[in-house]
């Protein structure tokens, strides 16, 4: 790769360059480098920012680099393995924070507005990344950048303003402490531009709550792995972007034709739920509540139950019929699957923060025993306004409630609040304590491993996490394949680069459309955990890893295998195959796994909380069901073998890394004697 100092320019005289460089204290202008446009989809520029000395530089990778890593997850893995040494403090200045859209981001089709964010996670101590929707990712590409790599720590609270070639460091001390909504208003007003797109943390990230997240456009979250805390540790409040260029694509008419086709065929294409795309708009992800409840797999009261007697009260239908104001969407997407709610009493909930999706309905609803949809919506708003992951926060609170119910916490620990499943106002009170980092909130905000240590009294058995990342709201006793996916995930428990066992049980439009092209040809029962299910987990997860390299939305029909190959070729001009794209996904998985191996992670970190092996449900359709530990461990070993990882340690073999064109990663692991 070529590193281009900011003083290099084409078309500017030396006096002009010196004048620009010396006239500014807080503003530095990146001179546009007239890079020969290589392929469609890429700008050819990765912006490097050092917050400490406000240094800027550009990297201009060649075509092979982009085709090999694509963007998103693989690009993040590349930088973290290449540039971080093991043992770096995730909240120290040496950590990198990488904002990475992908190859397809910003091209005009549904699902292309997203970006990934990655760093060493302060929640797990390992590889961390999260994906986020909205518009910011597309705007960054329109400004002319494929990614931003942030290093160092600013001396004072700072935000970065990017307008095409101009990159400025701006004082953020007047924004620090403000909600994301307040900060957005200030940034737009002081820059006289209400069309700026902003990615930012809130006060929770400033205070380095370990599961603080990064918020785009106020209602879209890069939720997992505590990346908001990393951003807060760097004194970086926001990156505001305005781009004026269209993202170049190789075959613009083909891209337009495919986009038009989707918009005109919402009633004939299928969403991942198996409903038509237009039908999926009705409820979005909130459609999952009653179905999972009927199946006995709706996480309830800290995963002690699988059915919630008041599921109707927190359902998507109830939301639709009472507090739903409108449905929102992302860049270039005609689907409108997002929820936007408005509540006036007893809580005021501002619709600019969107509304609860499935995970939030379950995490602050059934899993805390709360049947109050307005309270759940208020919790959602508090999280969006302050930058907190709703999954991790809700599960932290359900942990605290269970501890309280078992006498492991008392009202002395909670500042007088009596915690109980079903008490919505207590739930919101604890949530505010987490935001403020006060009392019990300070303890819970340190993440589940540390919180359980601080509480002691064997409370760790009620802290439901993998590698420190709290469990998403999908029950492993209903979806055991997902349970394996939680255990082996490099980011800790994650439901996105994973398999929903319930999608594999019968042929249907999505099974045929999405799974068969990956070689997943026969339905498999949800409770099966044999080699065939693990093969599905491997294939489907590697495909999801690729989707996170392209950073496109899982919920649109055009991100299914066949369509995505076609769209990739139309945008880039390459002649990719599904095989090649799957290999990119596999590469991303192995880069992240290698990063973790170098940090000391092994197969002993790939597990699930004991609850799922020892505590059967006492009632409901899954009464008596627990996971079989021997079957689970066998399935895990099969997963390692299928991935080409050492069966004892779970570390990628040198041969697997060579096969994926990651020989440099094999060398790196060899240097630290981590290769099996």
């Amino acid at each position, binding site marked *: 790769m070529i590193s281009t100092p900011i003083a290099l320019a084409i078309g500017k005289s030396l006096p002009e360059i010196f004048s620009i460089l010396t006239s500014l204290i807080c503003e530095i202008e990146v001179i546009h480098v007239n890079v020969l446009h290589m392929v469609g989809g890429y700008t050819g520029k990765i912006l490097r920012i050092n917050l400490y000395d406000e240094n800027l530089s550009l990297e201009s990778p060649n075509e092979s680099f982009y085709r090999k890593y694509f963007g998103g997850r693989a690009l993040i893995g590349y930088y973290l393995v290449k540039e971080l040494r093991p043992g770096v403090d995730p909240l120290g200045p040496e950590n990198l924070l990488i904002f990475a859209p992908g190859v397809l981001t910003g091209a005009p089709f549904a699902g292309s507005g997203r970006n990934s964010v990655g760093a060493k996670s302060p929640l797990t101590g390992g590889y961390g990344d999260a994906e986020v929707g909205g518009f910011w990712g597309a705007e960054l590409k329109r400004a002319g950048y494929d990614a931003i790599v942030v290093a160092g720590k600013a001396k004072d609270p700072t935000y970065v303003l990017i307008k095409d070639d101009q990159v400025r460091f701006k004082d953020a001390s007047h924004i620090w402490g403000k909600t994301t909504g307040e900060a957005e208003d200030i940034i737009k007003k002081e820059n006289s531009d209400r069309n700026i797109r902003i990615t930012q943390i809130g006060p929770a990230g400033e205070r380095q709550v370990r599961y603080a997240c990064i918020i785009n456009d106020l209602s879209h979250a890069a939720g997992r792995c505590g990346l908001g805390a990393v951003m807060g540790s760097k004194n970086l409040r926001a990156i505001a972007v305005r781009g004026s260029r269209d993202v170049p694509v190789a075959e613009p008419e083909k891209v337009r034709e495919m986009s038009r086709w989707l918009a005109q065929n919402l009633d004939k294409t299928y969403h991942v739920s198996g409903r038509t795309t237009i039908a999926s708009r009705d409820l979005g992800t909130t459609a*999952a509540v009653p179905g999972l409840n009927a199946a006995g797999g709706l996480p309830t009261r800290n995963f002690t139950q699988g059915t919630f007697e008041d599921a109707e009260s927190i359902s998507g239908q109830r939301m639709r019929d009472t507090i739903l104001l409108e449905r929102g969407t992302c860049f270039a997407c005609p689907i409108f699957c997002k929820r936007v709610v408005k509540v006036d009493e007893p809580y005021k909930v501002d619709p600019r923060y969107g509304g609860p999706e499935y995970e939030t309905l379950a995490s602050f609803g059934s899993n805390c025993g709360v049947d109050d949809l307005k309270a759940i919506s208020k919790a959602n708003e508090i999280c969006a306004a302050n930058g907190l992951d709703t999954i991790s926060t809700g599960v932290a609170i359900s942990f605290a409630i269970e501890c309280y119910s078992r006498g492991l916490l008392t009202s002395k620990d909670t500042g007088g609040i009596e915690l109980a499943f079903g008490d919505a106002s207590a739930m919101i009170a604890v949530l505010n304590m987490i935001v403020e980092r006060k009392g019990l909130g300070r303890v819970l905000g340190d993440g589940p491993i540390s919180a359980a240590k601080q509480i002691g009294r064997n409370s760790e058995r009620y802290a439901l996490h993998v590698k420190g990342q709290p469990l998403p709201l999908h029950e492993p006793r209903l979806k055991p394949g997902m349970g394996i996916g939680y255990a082996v995930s490099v980011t800790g428990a994650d439901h996105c680069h994973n398999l929903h066992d319930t999608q594999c049980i019968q042929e249907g439009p999505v099974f045929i459309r999405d799974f068969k092209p990956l070689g997943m040809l026969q339905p498999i029962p949800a409770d099966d955990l044999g080699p065939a299910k693990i093969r599905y987990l491997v294939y489907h997860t590697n495909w999801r890893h690729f989707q996170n390299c392209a950073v496109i939305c899982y919920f649109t029909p055009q991100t299914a295998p066949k369509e995505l190959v076609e769209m990739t070729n139309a945008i880039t001009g390459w002649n990719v195959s599904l095989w090649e794209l799957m290999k990119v996904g596999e590469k991303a998985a192995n880069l992240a796994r290698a990063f973790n191996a170098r940090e000391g992670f092994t197969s002993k970190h790939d597990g699930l909380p004991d609850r799922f092996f020892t505590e059967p449900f006492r009632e409901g359709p899954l009464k008596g069901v627990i996971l079989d530990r021997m079957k689970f461990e066998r399935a895990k070993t099969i997963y390692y073998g299928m991935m080409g990882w050492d069966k004892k340690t779970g570390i990628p073999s040198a041969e697997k890394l060579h096969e994926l064109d990651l020989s440099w990663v094999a060398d790196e692991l060899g240097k630290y004697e981590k290769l099996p």
Partner: protein
Amino acid sequence: MRVRVRLHGGLHIDLGMNSEMIELTPTQGPKVADIVRELGLRAEDVWLVSVNRNRVSNDFTVQNGDLIEIFPIVAGG
């Protein structure tokens, strides 16, 4: 016999109905599978069915006044 049927997850939209709750006098048989067919649903559209809040098989025989809830596959997220 008259039963109430609730179609979850947007199924009613795909069937061209205005409401997810309908009342039905089954004409093709009293089993759950008969009702699913009578509504115009394909087997692949249906993940599970509950009657009066209890999960049942396709072979289950419904009674007058039952509430039948039909769920498509869901993922979540």
